[in-house]
């Protein structure tokens, strides 16, 4: 469902250039992190579109430092605003989770990494991520999904780098333990 966000006024050449420079390269990252937040393709696309509109409107005030972190903050704020406006009965519709599995890709000829994709593993990893409390889940999203460095993730969350390292370590250990508990012993024992 598309939110009622007004379109931005037409920008000037400078802000258009800044938008192209800072925002366009991050579309994939915005989608991936959005997907981890909404768990639903249609919602993710709407969320990213709204985020792009907000980013476009704010690009003149952006100082050019850490564009990815800035965009991810915008994405999260957009998501919070969308949920505030959304009717309660539309929240967490379990039927929407069905397209999570349906959307799993089983191979991509252009991507050697994807040729060994195990859709069950991917769905289980996703479940393990979602089972984490937010203080562990968010660093994983920032570092593994969005590709931020430890320093960028620390700045984004306003915590020391050491805290990011420790939370990542604990989060991954929990995920690994959960995967082993449901039968992914081969991950460790070959």
């Amino acid at each position, binding site marked *: 469902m598309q939110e009622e966000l007004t379109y931005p*006024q037409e920008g000037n050449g400078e802000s258009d250039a800044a*938008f192209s420079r800072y925002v366009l390269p991050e579309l994939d990252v915005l989608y991936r992190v959005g997907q981890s937040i909404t768990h639903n393709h249609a919602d993710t696309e709407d969320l990213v579109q709204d985020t792009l509109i907000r980013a476009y409107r704010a690009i003149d005030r952006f100082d050019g430092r850490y564009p990815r972190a800035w965009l991810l903050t915008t994405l999260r704020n957009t998501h919070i605003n969308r949920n505030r406006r959304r009717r309660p009965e539309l929240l967490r519709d379990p039927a929407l989770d069905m397209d999570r599995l349906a959307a799993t890709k089983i191979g991509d000829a252009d991507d050697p990494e994807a040729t060994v994709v195990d859709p069950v593993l991917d769905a289980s990893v996703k479940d393990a991520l979602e089972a984490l409390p937010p203080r562990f889940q968010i660093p994983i999203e920032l570092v593994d999904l969005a590709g931020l460095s430890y320093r960028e993730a620390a700045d984004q969350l306003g915590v020391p780098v050491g805290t990011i390292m420790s939370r990542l370590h604990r989060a991954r250990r929990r995920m690994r333990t959960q995967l082993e508990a449901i039968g992914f012993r081969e991950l460790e024992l070959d």
Partner: protein
Amino acid sequence: MGLFRRSPASKSECDEIGRLLQRYLDNELDVNRACTVLVHLEDCKRCGLEAASYREIKQSLRRTGRPDEQTASRLRKFAESLTTTDHR
């Protein structure tokens, strides 16, 4: 297998590698320490398998939520339209 095989890793060595492993997997180590970890992972089966399991989780996360081609194209067109369209 080389002629001069290193002796099995000690527990303290494995513990030290365990402390560096996540940073190694995230490319957050300097070259010297990254080399130390790499050599250890090649020699020590237990640590090597542990690293492989974390690597699989990271790769799975990277695949997670990747937009399909059509979605990626729609989003790109939408983003580009913001800079090229008069929305008033």
